[in-house]
């Protein structure tokens, strides 16, 4: 009885000393606080990425399953070489997948450039507006951003269709001036996908550019004016360099998602415009070849990481990402 009591006492004491030790040990406290996040990121980010890597070397079974092995077939197929035909045959090389990758890269590049051109003046306008009005203008940028992504793509169907709003307006104008007009087929074209992408990601560029422009002290503009710089020179020597962190952050926030998005091309491009995202998605749903999909997904990741790495090494990693 007394023995049990004593054991209980020492156990309690041990618990107490453990607690005290934890109070002293800053490192253990930090680990404990970060522990749930660490576990979550391990299980749902790091392990999935490693699994993707492992599976990309595997082979598919007829019913869409995976046989673990080490073969580079999927990567060879991505590069356009078939593994099934004899060497030397002309039809063995099919650049389809390389074209898809290239198309995604150029689309992401074009979207980013267009978005910068559209976002910059608006961000500048808001940053130079009266402080009391800035929030309202920003609020107007946030509303479309908070409207659902899928709904925003859908809106463009209503505009771009043959009987859509844009053709309706042009037709009405043409009628007014007695010009012959046949409705344009704009939906399901590469142009429709580009417009959709620009529309989707424009707010992601406006916010970081605004953040960096807003930080510029007014006295810098005054100094530039006092020293005789005209507005072009002031922009080139003062405004633009100081707003670069915002442009860099915005570029990362736009370029990376455009590379991977498949909804915009799916809905606005029909079956005409196939991007890497569509390729990956189809391997997992229609084609049932997760091993090839995994390889494509890894190539996509590596491609974006390389572009981001070189881009940020040249321009620095904008801290505006967090602010936006």
């Amino acid at each position, binding site marked *: 009885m007394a023995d049990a009591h004593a054991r209980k006492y020492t156990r309690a004491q041990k618990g107490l000393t453990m607690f005290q030790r934890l109070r002293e040990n800053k490192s253990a406290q930090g680990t404990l606080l970060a522990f749930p996040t660490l576990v979550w990121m391990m299980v749902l980010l790091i392990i999935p990425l490693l699994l993707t890597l492992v599976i990309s070397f595997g082979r598919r079974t007829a019913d869409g399953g995976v046989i673990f092995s080490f073969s580079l077939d999927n990567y060879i197929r991505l590069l356009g070489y078939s593994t099934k035909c004899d060497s030397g045959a002309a039809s063995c090389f099919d650049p389809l997948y390389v074209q898809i990758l290239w198309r995604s890269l150029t689309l992401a590049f074009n979207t980013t450039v267009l978005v910068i051109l559209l976002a910059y003046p608006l961000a500048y306008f808001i940053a130079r507006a009266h402080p009391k009005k800035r929030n309202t203008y920003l609020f107007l940028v946030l509303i479309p951003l908070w409207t659902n992504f899928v709904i*925003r793509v859908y809106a463009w169907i209503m505009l771009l269709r043959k009987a859509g709003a844009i053709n309706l307006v042009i037709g009405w104008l043409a009628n007014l001036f007695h010009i012959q007009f046949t409705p344009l087929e704009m939906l399901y074209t590469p142009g429709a996908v580009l417009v959709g992408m620009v529309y989707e990601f424009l707010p992601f560029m406006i916010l970081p550019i605004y953040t960096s422009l807003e930080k510029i002290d007014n006295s810098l503009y005054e100094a530039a004016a006092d020293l005789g710089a005209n507005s072009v020179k002031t922009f080139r020597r003062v405004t633009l360099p100081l707003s670069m962190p915002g442009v860099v952050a915005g570029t990362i926030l736009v370029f990376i998602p455009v590379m991977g998005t498949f909804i915009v091309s799916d809905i606005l491009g029909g079956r005409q415009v196939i991007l890497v995202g569509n390729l990956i998605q189809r391997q997992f749903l229609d084609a049932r070849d997760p091993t090839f999909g995994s390889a494509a997904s890894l190539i996509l990741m590596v491609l974006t990481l390389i572009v981001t790495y070189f881009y940020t090494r040249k321009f620095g990693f904008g801290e505006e990402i967090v602010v936006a």
Partner: protein
Amino acid sequence: MNPYRRSPLVMVSTILVYFFLYAPIVVLMLYSFNSSKANVTFDGFIPSFGNVRVEGGNIVQSPCGPFHWFCELSKNREVTNAARNTLTIAFIATIVSTVIGTMAALALQRYNFRLKAFSQLSLYIPIVIPEIVMGIGILILFSQLFAYLNNLFGLTGDSRLSLGLNTVIVSHIAFMIPFVTLVVQARLQGFDKAYEEAAMDLGANEWITFRRITLPMILPGVLSGALLAFTLSLDDFVITFFTNGPGSTTLPIYVYGLLRRIITPQVNALSTVWITIVFIAVLLLQRFQNREA
């Protein structure tokens, strides 16, 4: 010199960009009152109230008048289910990710521990890789894991582990944590430790110091992190697309499914409701923040 002077070029392009941002939304909302059932062109508003009457593909009379499609929407069980799923996922995932994300932010900002650099790096990964890469990674994880477990325990039929609401919630938490942590970390950077030291000197223990000093001071950061996480969850398509299963359809997934088949004014009505709710929510929030400042 007027510091708020802007060139006419800036003004013109600003107006054009705002027009570009809003024209699609306005058209989208207008079509939700369309009397045309096919929804190809806008055939005007539904003119009168009464029992539903259709003439030449156009609805000329409805119990709800011009709001016909909104009434239809409220009767649509798939939509109400999807809305309930969307909100359930967003609420649970926001609460969990805010709590553990804030803990991680405190750990990363205040403490030194062995896996600190690794933790910080893992939080940046979801931001610098396309969402689809993470989405299919999680899909592979769940499908391999579930196949293994189902096989191991001989689970069949309804007891089989499969994708559903739980997998969506767990995955949402995973992509929300980095955003919460980074926002709270930014807030903690400007935090003066003297307040906490003063509290401890006055005899408060760690818990009381945290509850009475630290938490109130970082609360705006925590709340804006939570808000960001909540909106990301509501908006998410890609991660949900790869992790949802039968019965766990969310609104974005439902709309996407519809778009690939038919385009009815019901989708427009749904969009109009969504945009209106968002507009009111952001407006209220704006008011609230202005009062705080």
